[in-house]
């Protein structure tokens, strides 16, 4: 499910939000980079869900517990409150039903951490405004017809979705292209314009 593994600049930021020995489910865990990081540095009890066979095999070889599956169809099988944290990194925009996925994350985990590329970034806006074309940037390298990212949103859109499903935003961070945090207490509009990535810590 992790379709943008090359761009997981958010890993450090996500990892920082998770305390030691937490029980963590990483949905769209790719090759298991985050889970391994968490397991080694924070001794978390980590599990993963990954859609690609290559990713799953890589994870199993790393000694991680990962299930080949699809966030859209398989999260329903996880019991309520089974995890302290459920992570959805760079995957939300590739799900068929982001709203349902988000609801599952909040149901399965005490807290959910969601990161995604911000479609409200100025480069994206500029591309559409000036060129009249769907943006293809370093962060979003696909053409409109072959992109796995079928449900892009902006930071503002996501905040609205959180309100809609009753999720409380405990922390939010915008990142620049190198994964660096953009000023902590800036208004949403600023993040929405200058943030390339966003990381949200949510709870029910």
């Amino acid at each position, binding site marked *: 499910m992790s379709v943008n593994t090359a761009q997981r600049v958010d890993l450090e930021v996500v990892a920082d939000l998770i305390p030691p020995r937490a029980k963590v489910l990483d949905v769209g865990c790719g090759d298991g980079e985050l889970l391994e990081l968490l397991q080694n540095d924070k001794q978390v009890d980590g599990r993963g869900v990954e859609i690609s066979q290559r990713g799953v095999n890589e994870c199993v070889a*790393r*000694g*991680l517990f990962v299930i080949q599956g699809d966030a859209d169809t398989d999260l329903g099988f996880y019991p309520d409150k089974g995890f302290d944290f459920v992570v959805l990194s760079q995957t939300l925009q590739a799900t068929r039903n982001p709203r349902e996925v988000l609801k599952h994350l909040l149901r399965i985990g005490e807290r959910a951490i969601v990161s995604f590329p911000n479609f409200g970034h100025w480069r994206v806006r500029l591309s559409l405004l000036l060129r009249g074309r769907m943006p293809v940037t370093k962060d979003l390298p696909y053409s409109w017809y072959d992109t796995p990212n079928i449900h892009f949103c902006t930071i503002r859109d996501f905040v609205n979705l959180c309100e809609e499903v009753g999720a409380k935003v405990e922390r939010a961070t915008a990142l620049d292209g190198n994964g660096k945090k953009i000023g902590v207490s800036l208004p949403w509009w600023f993040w929405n314009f200058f943030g390339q990535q966003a990381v949200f810590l949510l709870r029910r």
Partner: protein
Amino acid sequence: MEALRPAKNRDEANDPSSLVLRFGPDKPLRLDAGIQLSPFQIAYQTYGTLNEARSNAILVCHALTGDQHVANPNPVTGKPGWWEVLIGPGKIIDTDRFFVICSNVVGGCLGSTGPASINPATGKPYGLDLPVITIRDMVRAQVMLVDHFGIDRLFCVMGGSMGGMQVLEWAASYPERVFSALPIATGPRHSSQNIAFHEVGRQAVMADPDWRGGKYIEAGVRPKKGLAVARMAAHITYLSEAALHRKFGRNLQDREALTFGFDADFQIESYLRHQGMTFVDRFDANSYLYMTRAMDYFDLAADHGGLLAEAFRGIQTRFCVVSFTSDWLFPTEESRSIVHALNAAGAPVSFVEIETDRGHDAFLLDEPELFAAIRGFIASAARARGFEPA
């Protein structure tokens, strides 16, 4: 002198060329059918050396028509062991490192007590007088074998198909004795369609006049035709349409044109006939009835109040569940239901679905992705168990 007899003429059912463990009247096998089977014996093979802590044992469970000869030439067929691609010195299941045990299941026909074994009460083969055997019975017998070695906890229990059912039963019934579990191409219960195929096979056996109500050994005959048909039908279910078509297509067998008769015009017919014929030379027809019945009766959820997750409640065993995309005998959904139950029970579980067109039998073949998954899983379990890296 006995060991020197050519394997061909040896009565493998009663006097196997493998190791045998015999249990006297003091140690009966409690069967689900409500009977204490005694005396009884388990034929088995081991590979490698059990370490001092007795912590490096891997139990391999065989499938429907498999046997204990997992990593040595088969004494009946002369062919390599059925999982020799995987198990041996320096291989993925490294016998320089692990102590591998594989036993013939109870009800089998290669030396563990089964329908071809002599019933001590009559001096004749059991035939259908042997109670119906279940997967749980097979596992109970394996527990007695493992106890014999003084092994408290197996490092891993692994197997495919019916072997996978035994793996699940081990984990559900003896979770504290299984450090890691590797069920492959299996399910938590036998589906209606699978029972249907098995019933076709059994009816074929029983329709053969030479079956003689199960007493063919005493009559000096064997229901070869019936068993061959059973095997032919079953064999189709082990493959996939894509693989069959890739391998045989509509190719003709040693001929230029259709013969307008019922000889084996097509290669696939000839292939199936060959599969059927070679099978009857190595397998006992009654044992085939018992093995298929054991699989049919398997329903792990039903044994735990109808909820599969209950079978795994509180389990600490590390799992790796594997399925194959083209397996229509045990489709991926069956494996997924195991995984969902394990997840619900909070068990540490990985699940890999291997992309292949080779159908159910893929688990016995040289499948690189399967081997990669097994290698990774075993290596991480070994680390977790505190073994030195290989």
